């Protein structure tokens, strides 16, 4: 039984995905890994390795978030005076201090009667950020929350790590969350298990193990990957088994709370670590694979908490402007954290991809 949340009269009113212009094909990097060409091509199909979007050196999450928000302001899709909170979910903060959300606030020149908040979350970051946004909207003074899910983790992944580099992507997504008198009830569940906290980590660079020349030294692991202690590392097998074990019963529990059958959900828009994991989840849950899109990694890479809103922008696109869908959103990974929300999504003011 997860921690349950219920919200009323709240909705997502727009989703904007900001992707780096730079696209790198799997074949361009294949030589970095100790795969045979034949094995690489098999994995390309199974895992969804194809191409990914990664930032240029020096690009930070605030650059991409500001680009996206300025686009919304310039297009008349958002007014500065309606923004009451900036909630940034990222694992790529620009500094230990100040919070990156405050940097974004400063760059945009927003009013001072506003709340800025950084949340350190990963793959479950969209749902966690959404829960925080809905909770903020319980306050009458909050008009609109800008939920930003942004990461540039390609800068922390070793190019010679076949476990992580082929699938990592960078992105920033801006989701506008606001009140709505006619919105349906929203149900959500959250679970965390810190005993698995080190299943995904960047060992060095924090206070516990500051980055030094020694932590930057590249070393080979037992699978032939080269990475340093400054790089992201994940125990892929453990994460895979955790997802296959924990997600199906959580979704079943959520649907039971919502009084819905699996078929009542139009789309299962889940975090996308890789295509294989998503397809196995869909099969295990008895959900047609077309209802659970798994095409984000192959097109853009896995940008952690940004993968669900990227999924919304890419797979629903303009259809979410005129239609309303019953959706189940689920994020899982870092923490370990596993979350899900069931709600309606549609009649959006905007739902698109722009490039930085």
């Amino acid at each position, binding site marked *: 039984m997860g921690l349950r949340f219920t919200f009323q009269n709240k909705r997502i009113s727009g989703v904007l995905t900001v992707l780096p212009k730079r696209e790198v094909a799997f074949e361009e990097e294949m030589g970095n890994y100790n*795969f045979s060409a034949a*094995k690489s091509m*098999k*994995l390309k*199909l*199974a*895992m969804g390795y194809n191409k990914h979007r990664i930032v240029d050196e020096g690009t930070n999450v605030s650059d991409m978030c500001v680009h996206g928000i300025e686009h919304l302001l310039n297009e008349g899709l958002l007014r500065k005076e309606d923004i009451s909170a900036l909630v940034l979910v990222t694992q790529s903060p620009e500094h230990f201090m100040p919070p990156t959300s405050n940097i974004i606030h400063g760059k945009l020149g927003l009013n001072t009667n506003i709340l800025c908040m950084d949340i350190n979350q990963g793959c479950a970051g969209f749902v966690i950020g959404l829960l925080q946004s809905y909770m903020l909207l319980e306050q009458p003074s909050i008009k609109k929350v800008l939920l930003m899910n942004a990461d540039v983790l390609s800068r922390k992944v070793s190019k010679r790590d*076949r476990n992580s580099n082929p699938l990592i992507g960078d992105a920033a997504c801006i989701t506008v969350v606001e009140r709505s008198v006619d919105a349906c009830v929203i149900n959500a569940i959250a679970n965390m298990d810190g005993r698995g906290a080190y299943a995904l980590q960047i060992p060095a660079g924090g206070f516990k193990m500051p980055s030094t020349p020694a932590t930057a030294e590249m070393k080979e692991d037992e*699978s032939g990957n080269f990475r340093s202690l400054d790089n992201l590392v994940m125990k*892929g*097998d453990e994460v*895979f*088994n955790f*997802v*296959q*074990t924990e997600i199906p019963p959580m979704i079943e529990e959520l649907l039971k709370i919502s009084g819905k059958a699996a078929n009542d959900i139009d789309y299962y828009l889940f975090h996308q670590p890789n295509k*294989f*994991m998503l*397809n*196995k*989840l869909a*099969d*295990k849950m008895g959900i047609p694979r077309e209802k659970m899109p798994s095409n984000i990694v192959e097109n853009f890479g896995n940008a952690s908490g940004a993968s669900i809103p990227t999924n919304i922008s890419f797979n629903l696109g303009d259809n979410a402007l005129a239609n309303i869908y019953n959706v189940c959103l689920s994020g899982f990974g870092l923490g370990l954290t596993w979350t899900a929300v069931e709600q309606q999504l549609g009649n959006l003011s905007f739902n698109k991809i722009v490039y930085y």
Partner: protein
Amino acid sequence: MKQEIIKILTELRPEFDFSQSTDFIEEGMLDSFDIVALVTALDEKFGISIDGTDILPENFSSAENIETVLRKNGAK
């Protein structure tokens, strides 16, 4: 079924003789990425979808164990 399993394994890693091995994992013949490719090939060959919770290295350590997991998941 065992012959089909050995054939798929050999296509995956032609440099090894899977019929002579007692433990594919211990002997370093399959890593986690090979298991992903193997599961994909087995799913396709036998028209099933091996349950995600069955995708553990020990279930793919021998042709006999692979046959067991295939039968558990409905392969005939």
